């Protein structure tokens, strides 16, 4: 029975979108009321399995009859075909899959129907258990309430909503991977951030955990295997999509007692071949490959280490999510908790989001909304895209605080990086000639200030009927939606004028469907206003919306101002529409978001990055980041373009069709700032045609696989975010090396402060700006400046000295230079100054030890700069005093003698020399004799000084194996020492 009820609810969700809003009593059908009514009357429904499809037809027909409209029965095959374009070729339309698409979690509590939910409550929320709610996570907020992630029986929804301790219930909508394979990419150079350096010694993410909440991971991929041990680098996988009692996180970790769903796999499970988790989508594997793949995997004869991730030695934790926001929040906490147990910091990658507006597969929402609705309708169902309900300023009371709560709970050392989203359209938005439909652009934004007078915007309503894409046969009806956020609580009036002059007026307090009565053509359509909201308690701003839609009397089909019937397509009249927004009283800044909204066969289908009816006047391309990516506690990442082609596994080169400039912002990267004007995104990273680990669980086309067959190309801010995630791991590692753990401000400070700013970045203003944030991620800044040390030593004793001799080579020693991160150095010696008349130059100026042979006496100033592959050091200077040398003794010889008395033998080196006749103008006072072990390069040791007039020295008492090389110098009465004469035996 429960299953039948469950299926009935799913059908409702299909049907609810088919139900036209009643013209005169719009308040009569809030969806939750209908949902609950359906539930209470579920006994009359006899649905199971695929029968849901037939029942859906019945609902459609029933509603159609009730609405006096002719509706054609859904064509399920066409619908399935359409959905496959979204969910992949393997998608099969069944009753279960349809229910799953609309947000049903496919398991039950005690046979009851259960939805994943986020519930905002006062207190700890324990009372929810009495309603049959199964609590997973509790996330305290700084706003005085607690967010509960839970499984909620829909049978208890009404009771829960009527409980005064409950502030809001969100039956969570599924997020989506922020992947965009189809966005045009540009560029020429193969630049990946990680290619700036191979981090041979310095930064590999070692000691840091990188987590990802995603589609799963192909744990067998060699990019995640430590080649040294042959064991996996994946420490844990939590598969939220499959429940295995006894193997949930709660079963292994007493700190996660409520995470009693899904299946947990450990590294041992993976190494022992027990893990059955797969990544059929390949998104998660690809993302993790960028963040932490080590490039060990290869094939087709290519060498290894060609596609190395940002942090190739980081530990890995993957949460294969079921995409409900509640599960995603749990996933973040899971990764942090496991990392904490491992004694390591962690950074979690979230290459996911809601998109600018809802996409197929969304759930529904229930707002326990204080205000006018409270008196009559304690709950409100979100029949409309969720984007409408995001305040986009981080103040919402359910989405952002839950993520922030986890971040706050774990504090320094634990970070979340999120993709900005793929709703941008950076290059096509400038073409508004109106002739090139459809615009493949994202939903759009405008902003105004009512204190400055009325605000007018115009848009060109797309003639959907006259264009082949998307196939009109999919379409069921068509609308253009506008959502408003007004600062404060102004009283406003909105006037909409159609292409044929029809005027529609709504004002604050209205919840009206303003329709064009049936009459002679032409028809412009209807406009529905909902300006009835009061200010939201969480930010004091006021929300409102309006829909420009088909005529309610639309069994007529208007095309080219003629009316046809019967038919089942509906659209507002094509052409230029105008909207005027003006203040009746009060009024200040406001934002309005617009997108086209279509529905086919009962499935709402608002393609997030496609709109067909662009704003053409007073358009503002900004504020596209609307979900929890607006939080200051996350690092939000946009994408820029680094590459324009790839070599695929079929040995062909591929590219996308249209190319903006390489180095610029990716076409799809969602622009900021937040609606309240805070900077987002924080940073931009490469996100187009990124080659990374390819899941072997997925089905690939040869053109998407890279040449080695084990890596593949993908594009999207999904690919940009893990670059930053890996970079954060590297920065953490740098802090760990210094015995410290960074906090969020420090990490952001590095990421933003190191951001590379080039002409592409500056082209959008700032930085920061709405596209790149603070610029392009530049992890090479991890490298600190190297330190140059320039020295000169005496040739014999290696004692530091500034004295050199004319005509004799002096060695300039840079070997004491160093790089804090142990990267190899290159050297550059230059002669800064020299005495007049000198033509001396530095030989081997690019070597660690350079040579200078002074040619005239005087002061020589030498500069050394070393480079670690990125940075030049500060210069080191060496000032040398060149003198005319005393000549060393002449005919210096060393003779080895065995001196024995028959019983004992001593070895003696007999040193002989002669006075140098060229020292005739110098009075030699003594001779100094040095030695060092023969063959060594070390300093020579002074072993004797003998007076002038002595020309022999016996170095006695040597062993049979003691061999030395000797040097002798002459010293004048002023202490000036000659260069050495060398000898050895």
């Amino acid at each position, binding site marked *: 029975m429960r299953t039948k009820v469950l299926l009935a609810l799913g059908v409702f969700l299909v049907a609810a979108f088919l139900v036209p809003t009643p013209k005169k009593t719009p308040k009569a059908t809030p969806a939750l009321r209908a949902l609950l009514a359906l539930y209470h009357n579920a006994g009359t429904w006899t649905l199971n399995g695929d029968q849901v499809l037939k029942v859906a037809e019945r609902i459609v027909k029933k509603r159609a009859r009730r609405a006096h409209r002719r509706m054609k029965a859904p064509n399920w095959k066409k619908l399935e075909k359409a959905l496959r374009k979204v969910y992949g070729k393997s998608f099969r339309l069944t009753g279960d899959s349809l229910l799953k698409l609309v947000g049903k979690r496919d398991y039950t509590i005690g046979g009851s129907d259960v939805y994943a939910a986020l519930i905002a409550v006062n207190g700890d929320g324990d009372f929810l258990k009495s309603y049959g709610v199964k609590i997973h996570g509790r996330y305290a907020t700084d706003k005085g309430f607690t967010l509960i992630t839970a499984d909620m029986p829909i049978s208890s929804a009404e009771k829960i909503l009527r409980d005064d301790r409950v502030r809001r219930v969100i039956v969570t909508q599924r997020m989506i991977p922020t992947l965009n394979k189809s966005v045009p990419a540009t560029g020429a150079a193969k630049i990946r951030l990680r290619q700036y350096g191979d981090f041979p010694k310095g930064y590999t993410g070692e000691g840091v955990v990188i987590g990802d909440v995603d589609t799963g991971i192909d744990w067998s991929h060699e990019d995640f295997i430590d080649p040294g041990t042959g064991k996996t680098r994946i420490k844990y996988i939590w598969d939220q999509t499959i429940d295995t009692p006894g193997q949930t996180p709660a079963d292994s970790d007493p700190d996660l007692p409520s995470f009693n769903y899904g299946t947990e796999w450990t590294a041992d499970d993976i190494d022992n071949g027990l893990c059955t988790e797969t990544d059929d989508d390949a998104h998660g594997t690809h993302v993790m490959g960028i963040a932490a793949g080590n490039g060990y995997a290869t094939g087709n004869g290519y060498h290894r280490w060609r596609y190395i991730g940002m942090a190739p030695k980081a530990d890995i934790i993957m949460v294969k999510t079921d995409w409900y926001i509640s599960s995603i929040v749990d996933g973040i906490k899971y990764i942090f908790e496991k990392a904490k147990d491992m004694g390591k910091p962690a950074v979690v990658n979230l290459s996911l989001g809601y998109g600018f507006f809802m996409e197929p597969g969304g759930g529904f929402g229930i707002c326990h909304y204080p205000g006018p609705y409270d008196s009559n309708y304690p709950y409100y169902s979100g029949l409309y895209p969720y984007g409408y309900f995001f305040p986009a300023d981080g103040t919402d009371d359910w989405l952002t605080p839950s993520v922030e709560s986890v971040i706050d709970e774990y504090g320094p050392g634990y970070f979340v990086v999120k993709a900005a989203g793929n709703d941008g359209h950076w290059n096509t938005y400038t073409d508004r000639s109106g002739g090139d439909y459809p615009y493949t652009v994202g939903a759009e934004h405008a902003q105004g200030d009512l204190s400055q007078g009325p605000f007018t915007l115009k848009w060109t309503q797309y003639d959907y009927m006259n264009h082949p894409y998307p196939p009109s046969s999919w379409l069921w009806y068509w609308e253009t939606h506008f959502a408003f956020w007004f600062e404060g609580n102004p009283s406003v009036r909105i006037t909409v004028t159609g292409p044929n002059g029809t005027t529609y007026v709504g004002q604050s307090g209205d919840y009206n469907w303003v329709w064009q009565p049936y009459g002679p053509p032409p028809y412009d359509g209807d406009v529905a206003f909902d300006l009835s909201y009061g200010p939201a308690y969480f930010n004091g701003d006021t929300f409102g919306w309006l829909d420009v839609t088909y005529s309610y009397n639309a069994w007529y089909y208007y095309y080219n101002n003629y009316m046809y019937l019967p038919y089942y397509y509906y659209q507002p009249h094509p052409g230029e529409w105008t909207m005027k927004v003006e203040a009746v009283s009060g009024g200040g800044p406001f934002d309005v978001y617009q997108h086209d909204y279509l529905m086919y066969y009962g499935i709402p289908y608002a393609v997030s990055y496609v709109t067909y009816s662009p704003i053409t006047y007073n358009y503002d391309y900004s504020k596209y980041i609307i979900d929890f990516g607006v939080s200051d506690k996350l690092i939000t990442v946009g994408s820029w373009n680094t590459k324009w082609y790839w070599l695929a596994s079929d040995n062909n080169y591929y590219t996308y069709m249209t190319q903006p400039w390489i180095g610029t912002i990716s076409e799809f990267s969602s622009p900021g700032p937040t609606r309240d004007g805070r900077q987002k995104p924080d940073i931009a990273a490469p996100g187009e045609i990124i080659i990374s680990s390819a899941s072997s669980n997925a089905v690939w086309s040869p053109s998407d696989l890279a040449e080695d067959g084990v890596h593949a190309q993908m594009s999207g801010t999904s690919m940009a975010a893990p670059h930053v995630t890996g970079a954060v791991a590297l920065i953490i590692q740098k802090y760990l090396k210094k015995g410290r753990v960074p906090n969020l401000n420090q990490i952001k400070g590095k990421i933003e402060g190191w951001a590379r700013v080039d002409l592409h970045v500056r082209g959008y203003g700032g930085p920061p700006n709405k596209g790149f944030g603070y610029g392009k991620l530049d992890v090479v800044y991890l490298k600190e400046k190297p330190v140059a040390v320039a020295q000169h030593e005496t040739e014999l004793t290696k004692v530091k000295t500034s004295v050199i001799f004319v005509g004799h080579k002096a060695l300039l020693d840079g070997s004491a230079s160093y790089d804090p991160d142990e990267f190899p150095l290159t050297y550059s010696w230059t002669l800064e100054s020299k005495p007049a008349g000198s033509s001396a130059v530095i030989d081997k100026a690019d070597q660690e030890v350079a040579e200078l042979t002074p040619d005239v006496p005087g002061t020589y100033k030498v500069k050394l700069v070393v480079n670690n592959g990125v940075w030049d050091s500060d210069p080191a200077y060496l000032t040398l005093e060149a003198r005319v040398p005393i000549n060393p003794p002449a005919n210096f010889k060393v003779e080895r003698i065995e*001196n*024995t*008395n*028959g*019983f*004992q033998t*001593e070895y003696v080196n007999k040193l002989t020399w002669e006075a140098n006749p060229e020292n005739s103008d110098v009075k030699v006072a003594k001779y100094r004799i040095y030695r060092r072990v023969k063959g060594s390069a070390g300093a020579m040791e002074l072993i004797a000084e003998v007076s002038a007039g002595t020309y022999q020295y016996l170095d006695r008492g040597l062993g049979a194996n003691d061999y030395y090389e000797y040097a002798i110098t002459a010293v004048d009465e002023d202490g000036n020492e000659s260069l050495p004469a060398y000898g050895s035996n």
Partner: protein
Amino acid sequence: MRKLLVIMLFLALPAGIFAGGLFGELSLGYRTQGDSTLRDVYGGGALQPTLGIGTHLGKIHLVLTTGYFTNSGKTLGLEEKTTLSYIPLFVKAFYPLAKGNLHPYVGLGAGFLFYKVKNESEGLEDVSKSAFGFEPEVGVCKPIAQGRAAFLSLSYLFANAKPFETTRNIGGLKVAVGFRARF
């Protein structure tokens, strides 16, 4: 073991005194350096005076002898002065083969040499040690009066000394003439 043998011989000597009376002998010989390296350092040899006191045990003559040998030379290499000297303390036994005008005899001595090597070289160490040696001897004895005789002997001393790493025979051939008298 060799030292034990010498000690036993010395213990036997008092028994000989009571058995056959005492005699003394004095000789002067020339001792060569038998080892070729020592010969290179110290030259061919040096005079060695010897003094002894003996007795009879039947036809066996036992003599306790000592003497002094010193030989200087120059080191090989730096030609610095070096001196080898030793004092032997031997017990010798000899046996006359026939009576008549000339009495040939054969003998064998054994005992210790207390030797020194002294160097002027600062690179070589002085040393003072002992070494065991033995010395076979042949000779003829000519009685010249009652209880008195002269003798001519030829002997070769074997004494391996190892003051450091190298072992060398510090002995050599000796030709000596001497006088022996009964008390």
